[in-house]
Every structure is written in C-alpha cells, then in structure tokens.
C-alpha cells in the first residue's frame, strides 16, 4: 500500500467519478454548512444539540444499516454477494454516505423543531 497517498487517491477518485466527484463534494459542503448553520441557530436560541445529534445519529445508523444491503446492487451484484465480515464492513462504510446525508438532513430538521423554539420564543 506504500504507493497509496492522498494525492494518488484523489486522482483515482476523480478518474472514477469524473465531474460527479465535484458535485458530490459540493453537496457534502452544502450539507455540512446546513448542519453547522442549524446547530448555530439552535445554540443561539438556547437549545441543546443533544436531541438533534441523537436523532441524526440514529437515522444515519438505520439508513446505513439498510443501505448496506443495497450497496452490492451499485456494483451490479446482489446482497447475497456479502459473505465475510470485511464485505459487510466495506458495504456499511459505503452505506454511510447515504446514511450521513439522511443524518445531516435529520439534524437540520430536528434542530428547527418546536420544543426549543417554543422555549426560546415564549
């Protein structure tokens, strides 16, 4: 693995995904920005991040767990192709991408949910 370094890995990803890499990175940045903005807003009104964080964590985990069995289709295989622990681990890691998206959206949604809003506005 000595020849794998961040630069070569970036080029491999870029050559694999092409322009989609930039689209995905842009979406990731936007999602992160949304999460940070939501968190800041909630903190500003005196809310705690505990609830949105737990909700995001749970949603991320559940979505990733479900998507673990969908990931093989992305490689033109079926879920039955997963057999060893390392297979499940890598499928789960890949499934963390949609999981993180779902978790990020959940975080933003729960951050804006009413209980802390009511507390802060009442």
């Amino acid at each position, binding site marked *: *693995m000595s*020849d794998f370094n961040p*630069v*070569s890995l970036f*080029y*491999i*990803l*870029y*050559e*694999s*995904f092409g322009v989609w890499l930039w689209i995905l990175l842009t979406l990731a940045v936007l999602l992160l920005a949304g999460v940070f903005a939501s968190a800041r807003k909630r903190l500003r009104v005196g809310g705690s991040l505990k609830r949105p964080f737990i909700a995001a964590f749970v949603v991320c985990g559940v979505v990733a767990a479900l998507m673990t069995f969908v990931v*093989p289709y*992305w*490689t*033109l*295989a*079926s879920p*039955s*192709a*997963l*057999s*060893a622990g*390392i*297979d499940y681990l*890598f*499928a789960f890691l890949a499934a963390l991408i949609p999981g993180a998206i779902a978790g990020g959206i959940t975080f933003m949604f729960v951050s804006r949910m009413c209980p802390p809003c009511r507390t802060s506005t009442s």
Partner: protein
Amino acid sequence: MRRREFLIGAAALGAAGSTLTSGVAAQESAARARIVIAGAGAAGLALASRLRRQMPNATITLIDAKKEHHFQPGLTLVAAGLWQPADVTERNADYVPRGVEWIEQAVTEFDPEAKIVVTDKGQRISYDFLFVATGLMLDYKAIAGMDVSLIGRNGIASIYAGPAQAAASAAAIDHFIQAGGVGLFGRPAGEMKCAGAPLKITFVTDDKARRANRRGAVKLIYNAHAPALFAVPPVNEKVKKLFSEREIAANYNHVLKAIDPGAKRATYTTPSGDVTLDYDFIHVVPPMRAPDAVRNSPLPWKSGALAADGWIEADKATLRHPRYPNVFAVGDIAGVPRGKTAASVKWQVPVVVDNLVAETAGSTPRKTYNGYTSCPMVTAIGKAMLIEFDYDGKLTPSFPFISPLEELWVSWLIEEKGLKGAYRAMLRGQA
C-alpha cells in the same frame, strides 16, 4: 564524446544547479534527451505522462496508429454481460499529455544500432532513449480454423480481441446457457496477458448458468495448458477446489491446436497425442506473440523460453535491454516472467522512469521491479479473489485486510468500481 554521455553530463550539471536552488533532491532530470515511446497502450501513455513531468526538457515522441484505447481489464465484465463496450472504450488523444508529440503511425522497424525507429509511412525517428511498449499480437491464426470474425458465431467466444468481440462473447455465453451442451475453456501454452481471464470467464459462465437454473444443462470443461490450472501453487489449489465444488471438469496439458467451427470440434495437443473434443460452446484464447516489427528486429531474446514468441530481452529487475542499454521494454512486450497485466505496468513504469531520471541526472538508478502482477480473479458475479504475486510466485497482498484466496465482495468492489479509476490515474501518471 558520445551523445548519450554528453546528455548525462549536461543533465547532471542542470540537476546539481536545481538541487542547490531548491534544496530538494532532484526527482526530475533537466536532460534534453530525445525519447521515443513505441506504443500508446497502457504502458506507453503512462510512460509519456511520467516522463513529461519528470523530464521537462526532453523531447518526447509517442508513436502509435491506434486512436482507440481499450480498458482491457474490463473486457471480462463486458463478456459477463455486465458492462457495455462503451464502458471500456476511450480515446488515446484524451490521455496524451501536453508537450508530447504523438505520431499517429505504426512502428514497422526498430534499428537499435542506428538508434532509429521507422514508421509505416517511412518516417525515420531518431532517439537517445527508446521505450518499447507496443503490446502484443493476438495470434488467432495460429489455431487452425480460427479467425477473429468467427467470434460470436457457432458457439465461439473470445474476450481478448476487443470490446465488440467481448460483447459478442457475452451473447454466445447466454445462448449456450439457454441451449445447453458442452462448453470448453482453456488457455494457450506461451506467455499471455492476464492469465487469470480464462479462469474468470469459466467461473462467470458457471455462475450465469446457476442463476438461470440451467447448470444441469451445461457441462463445463477447462483445458489447462500445463499440469496445473494456475502457475502460483496456492492459487492453483484454490481454483482446483472451486472447480471441484462447482463441478467444472479439468483436463491438463491440453493446448488448443485447431477448431472446426462447422462441426463444433476442437483439437488439442496433449503429451499422448492429439485429442479432439466436441463442443457446443468454446472460449478461445489465442497464442500471444510479439508484433512483427519487434520480432523482426534485433531486440528479442536470442535463446531461452521467451525467444520463440519474440519477447524483448530485458533485465527482469530494471526492464533494460542488456545489449542496448538505451532501450527499455515495458508492459506486455517485455520479455520477463509474468508481468503482462495493467497492474504490472503500474509498477513497471515508475521503475524505468525513475531510473532514467536518475541516470540522466547523474545519479545511480536504484529502482527495481519485483515482478508484481495482480489478477482480481472473478469467481462469480459479485465475488472475486484479489490475487497479487511477484516473480517468485509469492503472494504479495496490497491490503492486509483482504485475504487473497478468499472469495470476497470487497475484492469484486475493487474489480468493478476501483480498477478503472486507478487505471486512468495511472495513464495520467498520477497513480
């Protein structure tokens, strides 16, 4: 003073100056060498990219008439019916780096004494250093009765000839599975590119038949050219076990000599004489040889196992020609044991480029190639074994968490999703 020595001396001064100003050991050479790369396949393009970057003052000329570039590791997936020919077809023009002259002609003659290559249009190109990366020739005609035009007809498949033929092979496999009968597989006796591919297509056919609930209708026979299914013993044992589990029969020391497409009969040379087998489907892997331009030149081995097919004589650690030290052979054409895969090219190219850079910069070339090659052996759709080994047949796994002899989806993930990106990055000299 000979031109090459002059170049080295001048470059050494340049490199020394560069080192003084930058304070960093030179990984570039300022040599104004004339470099010719014969062949714009995987090795040729990867060489061009790295040489352009590491030898900015060199004149680099790439010679190849071929405009299309095929991602050959993907041909198995085309033949499996999973990828389309377009998925493995690109343009060489998209990978020729800026500052490299591409002469769109074929090399027809190598004259290493005069340090000249001649093209099919009569152009004579002089060089200080020559990289021969012509690839190899698929010698279908060496099998009596066989012709490329037969692929996809009369139950004949062959994934090596190109994307269209791989797609035609996919259709032939599907038809065979539906019609049933006897399917023959095998490989030629000599050196060949991607020696795992004949086994892969056997496994793929078995798997597709099982998925179609037609495994009972097809009999699969693998005709090995040697007393083993694979040259690396632990891999051979594993493949034997898988064949046994999947009821794929094996014949040993069978080399395809002739086919009769009309009668669907294949004749094999064996130690006990010719043997003829009836088939309904056959996957033909042609003998592979050096192209005529190389074979007819002084560059091939003069004796030994690699001489007959015209592979270029090369030191197996440095890929440098022992009789013509300004000539290097890279990729399929190199007369070294194993090493005819894109993965080999990935490891060969940095060795020869870094050594030339070091030499022309006045330092001692130290890089060596250990024969690394890799074969993601597809054993079913969705499963593969990531087999990597060196000249000694020693397994050399790149990823400590991936067992090379275990059928894994993660190895399939690398085959189906990872290799193409890594290959393209290699062509650009970035991996």
